[in-house]
């Protein structure tokens, strides 16, 4: 079994996850990971579903597996930050979000999470800075989405 097949299975899982069919998505991710446990993106994708289904503890375990395979995996850091936020572990979440936004400066969600957690920790000024960065990125994404929409019509 090659990684390619695992990627294909994960792709199917992702399609289900996008339609909020988490049970089916989970089944595909599990299959992909049993075929290739070294597939970092598979762990990351499974962590996303675990968060969406209210299991942040388990999501953290999956994120750590992904990060053990690729320590510079920005999306996995971002997802870990989200799971930590959901567990109200704000200080740890700030660290993970900072790591994510350092690896990928264009991750609006990581900047936003950092802002939200700093706010929770009462660090309002630092939070505003992170919010500002997140907003800039979101606006750029929004303008791109609008452009694509215009292009489609």
């Amino acid at each position, binding site marked *: 079994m090659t990684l390619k097949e695992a990627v294909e299975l994960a792709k199917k899982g992702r399609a289900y996850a996008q339609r909020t069919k988490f049970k089916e998505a989970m089944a595909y991710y599990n299959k992909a990971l049993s075929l290739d446990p070294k597939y970092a993106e598979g762990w990351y994708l499974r962590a996303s579903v675990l968060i969406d289904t209210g299991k942040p503890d388990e999501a953290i375990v999956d994120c750590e597996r992904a990060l053990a395979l690729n320590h510079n995996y920005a999306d996995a850091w971002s997802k870990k930050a989200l799971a930590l936020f959901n567990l109200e572990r704000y200080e740890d979440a700030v660290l993970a979000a900072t790591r994510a936004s350092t690896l990928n400066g264009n991750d609006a969600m990581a900047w936003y999470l950092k802002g939200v957690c700093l706010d929770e920790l009462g660090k309002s000024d630092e939070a505003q800075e992170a919010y500002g960065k997140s907003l800039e990125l*979101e606006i750029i994404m929004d303008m791109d989405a609008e452009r694509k929409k215009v292009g489609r019509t």
Partner: protein
Amino acid sequence: MKTEMPLSKPIRRFLNQTEEMLDTEISLLRQPDAEPGGTLVDVYTYEMEKNVNVIIFPAQYVGLLKDFIIAKHCTSLLIKGAAHKKAKYQVLSYTEDSVARGLRQIYYDALKDEAKKQDKLPVNKLIQMLFILFTHFNDDLNELPWNAMINASVYHRMPKIRKTQLYHVMKESKNDMDEMIEQEHIVPRRYFVLNKAMFYARDMFLAKTLPADELMPVLNIPQMKKFNHLEVKEMLTTRWTHTAWYQSKVFGDNMLEIVDRHLDKVEWNEPPTLDHYLELYKLGVNLTNHLISFMTMKDWYVWEEPKHLLQAHQEKGEYEKKALKKIFGDLLGESWGEK
């Protein structure tokens, strides 16, 4: 409210507060093709199986843009809910007779315009336009006065998302300004002007309400650079004063005066009780009535419960047909409107 989405502290608080005050639930839904301004599907407007309201927003809104949409729709929900609980929540609807009155007036105005035109509009197009314009104004009047009020309320209650709000307001303003442009040569001048004037008044009111200093982070975005060193007020007014739409400005200034007269007396920072939101609802109704009077559309619409409007939408084909029959009699063939 149960969500795995991260939400900033003030928004989480506002959501919880809204649910508690209205004794209802709010669910958040991210959708790729959602409207840029988001959508509120609420229990006061639609018949829902469960006491759950849904706020839908575009998938690319992951942070503060999402927060603003939530704040805006929660405010709208509070206004509707307060009216429903403490009085009677009503919207502008229409009936068979009111459609006939509206269409007749639009037709007379269109005839006056057509008489002056070199390129006359084909009669069937002109007739088709009547009901489209009628419903267009119904939509705008059900949205625009509330939009100004809701934005002002969010601005005062949610200082942390003001920068986001400015981006939204400007984007909305641009989209609204583009509305009807392609039909400018078809739509009777009076209605084109009134439509633009309504948006002008809304923009000017918001330009006064939302000061410019909050805008700075937005200026870091290359696409927004051209607005550098301008005040929001200037940004929202320049495009009006530099266009040929002088009439829109004249009408718009009058409408702004109306908006000001109603909204200037609001204590935006009053404790957010149901009574406060009921007061906003009443002001919104009065403001809408005043705008309708100003536009001489007084007998076009009726205040009714939301289900009346939903029913009217379902029967609009029939209403249109009957109204046209009243205006044109047998000149209009039986097959008019059938595909």
